C-alpha cells in the first residue's frame, strides 16, 4: 500500500500548493467555460451545415466532445505536468534527485505534480456528456455505464502510457519542448468521430496515438455503438501498452544512468 500512501501524500501537497493561489480556481473555471463554449460553438457551426457527421448526430457528438474535455482535464491536471517536469529534469540533469529516492522511479515521476484547478475540466466534461445523453432520450443501463467508466479509465491509462513513452524519448532527444504542442494538436483530433479520417490516419490515431481508444470508444459505450470485440481489443491493447511503457522506461533509465557523467 506504499504506492497509494505516496500518491495521497503528493495529492495533499498539491492541494496545499494550489490553494495558495486563490485566483487560479476562478481562472480555471473561466477557462474551462471558455473552451467548452468554443467546442459547442464549433459543433453548432458544423451542424448548421449538415444533420449528421459520419453517422453521428449532434447530441451523440456532444458525448464525444464531453469525453474529450473530461480526459483533457485528467491530462492537464495530472499527466502533463509530471511528464513536462520529467522532460525538463532530464534536460537539466536534475532527474538524479528523483532517481536516488527509495521509491519506484516510474511511480515517483508520474505523481509528483498536480495542477488541481485544471481538474475543473473533468467536471465540465462530465456535464457536457450528461447533457448529450439527456438529449438522446435513450436509456443507459448499468452495464453500459460501468463499461463507460472502465473504458474511460482505460483511456486515461493509454494516454498516460503515450505521454510517458514520449517523455522517455527525452533520454535520447534531449530537447523535447514541442511535446505539449504536439500532443494538443493530435488530441484535438479526438473531438470528431475517427470514422471521418482517411484510413491510414485512422489507424495511426487508434494505435500510434491512442486517441481513438481513449475518446471515441467510451463515447460509443454511451451511444449504443459498442461491440464487445472492441472492448476486448481495448483491454488487450491497454495491457500490452502498459507493459511496453514500463519496459521502455527502464530501458531509457539505464541509458541515462550509463550516459550521464
Amino acid at each position, binding site marked *: 500500500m506504499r504506492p497509494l500512501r505516496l500518491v495521497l501524500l503528493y495529492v495533499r501537497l498539491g492541494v*496545499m500548493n494550489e*490553494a*495558495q493561489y486563490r485566483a487560479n480556481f476562478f481562472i480555471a473555471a473561466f477557462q474551462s467555460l471558455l473552451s467548452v463554449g468554443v467546442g459547442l460553438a464549433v459543433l453548432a457551426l458544423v451542424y448548421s451545415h449538415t444533420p449528421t457527421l459520419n453517422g453521428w448526430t449532434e447530441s451523440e457528438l456532444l458525448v464525444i466532445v464531453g469525453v474529450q474535455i473530461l480526459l483533457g482535464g485528467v491530462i492537464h491536471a495530472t499527466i502533463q505536468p509530471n511528464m513536462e517536469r520529467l522532460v525538463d529534469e532530464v534536460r537539466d540533469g536534475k532527474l538524479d534527485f528523483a532517481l536516488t529516492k527509495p521509491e519506484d522511479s516510474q511511480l515517483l515521476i508520474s505523481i509528483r505534480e498536480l495542477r488541481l484547478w485544471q481538474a475543473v475540466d473533468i467536471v465540465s466534461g462530465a456535464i457536457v456528456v450528461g447533457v448529450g445523453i439527456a438529449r438522446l432520450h435513450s436509456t443507459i443501463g448499468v452495464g453500459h455505464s460501468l463499461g463507460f467508466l472502465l473504458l474511460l479509465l482505460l483511456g486515461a491509462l493509454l494516454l498516460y502510457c503515450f505521454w510517458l513513452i514520449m517523455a522517455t524519448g527525452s533520454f535520447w532527444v534531449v530537447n523535447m519542448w514541442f511535446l505539449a504542442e504536439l500532443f494538443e494538436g493530435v488530441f484535438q483530433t479526438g473531438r470528431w468521430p475517427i470514422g471521418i479520417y482517411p484510413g491510414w490516419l485512422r489507424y495511426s490515431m487508434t494505435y500510434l496515438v491512442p486517441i481513438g481508444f481513449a475518446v471515441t470508444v467510451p463515447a460509443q459505450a454511451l451511444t449504443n455503438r459498442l461491440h464487445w470485440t472492441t472492448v476486448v481489443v481495448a483491454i488487450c491493447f491497454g495491457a500490452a501498452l502498459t507493459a511496453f511503457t514500463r519496459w521502455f522506461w527502464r530501458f531509457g533509465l539505464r541509458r541515462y544512468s550509463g550516459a550521464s557523467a
Partner: protein
Amino acid sequence: MLPGVPGVVHVSHLTKIFRVPERESGMSAALRSLFKRQWRDVHAVEDISFEIEAGEVVGFLGPNGAGKTTTLKMLSGLLYPTSGEGLVLGHVPSRREREYLRRMTLVMGNRNQLQWDLPALDSFELNRAIYRLPRDDFRRTRDELIELLDVGDLVRKPVRQLSLGERMKVEVVGSLLHLPAVLFLDEPTIGLDVTMQRRLRSFVAEYNRRHGATVLLTSHYMADVEALCKRVIVIHHGRILFDGRLDALADSFSTTKTIEAVLADGERITLRVPKAETSQATARLLAEHDVTDLTVEDPPIEDVIEQVFAAEVSA
C-alpha cells in the same frame, strides 16, 4: 547632463522600500490566504548617501540581504528609488536614457546575458550592433578583452557548453565591448573557484588602470574587496555603517589588536589584546621573554566585519 554635479556617482538619501506578501505554512494557513492577504514592508535600502569620483574602484561590502544588489539596481536604472536621489554620470538612471545605457554596464554573478545556444562571438556581434560600435573599434576592443581574460578558445563554443567560470569570463567580455565608463559588478566572483576569482580580480584592476573606468563592486567575499578596492562602503540592513579607506576600517571598528611574537626557542605566541593595552602588553612581553620577532597587527578584516555585523544585530 547636469552641470556642476560632483563625482561620477552621486547618491543622496537613497531609500527603497518593498511591500511583500506574508504567508505561513500548513494547510489551514494556505486556505486562509485564499481570503485575506497580509503585507509587510521591507526596508531594503535606508537613507544612504555617498559620492564616487571618476576612476575609483569602490567595494560595497555586506552580508546577504544587506541592500547591496538593490542599490546597484537603482543605480543601473532597473529599480525606482522610493525616495532620495541617485545620479550616475549626470544621468538619472531610472530614466534609462540611451546615452546613459551606452556608458555603463551591470554584470551580475551567475546571470547570463549572452545567448545560450550560440558561440559567444555571435553574441558579441549582437552587442556591437546594439551599442552601435564601429567595426574596427569593436574588433580592437574585443580582441584586447579576449586576450586579457584568455578566452580565445572559449568564444567559439556555444555558451551552454562552458563551465561556470568560463561563462563568467565571456560574460565579462560581452559587457565591456562598448567600453563603459561605469562598471557595476554584482557579486562577480560568486560560485567561482579560487583561481578564477583571482583572474577576474586582476582583470578588473587592469581594466580600471587602462581605461580609467569607475567601478562599483559588491561582494560578500572579503578577498575581492581587499584585492581591488582602496575604498570600501560597508552596508548592513540597508544602512551605511562605514565609508572610507579599507585600512581605516579596522581602526574604526576593531577594539583589539593582535600581537604575534616568535621566541628564541622557536615558540610562537599570539595575543589578542584590547587596543588601549597594546603598549603595556608589548612591553611586558619583551620584558618577560626572549623575543626574536614581534608584529603588532589589526585583526583580520573578516573578523572586524563580523564583529560589526554582530554588533548591528544586537543593537
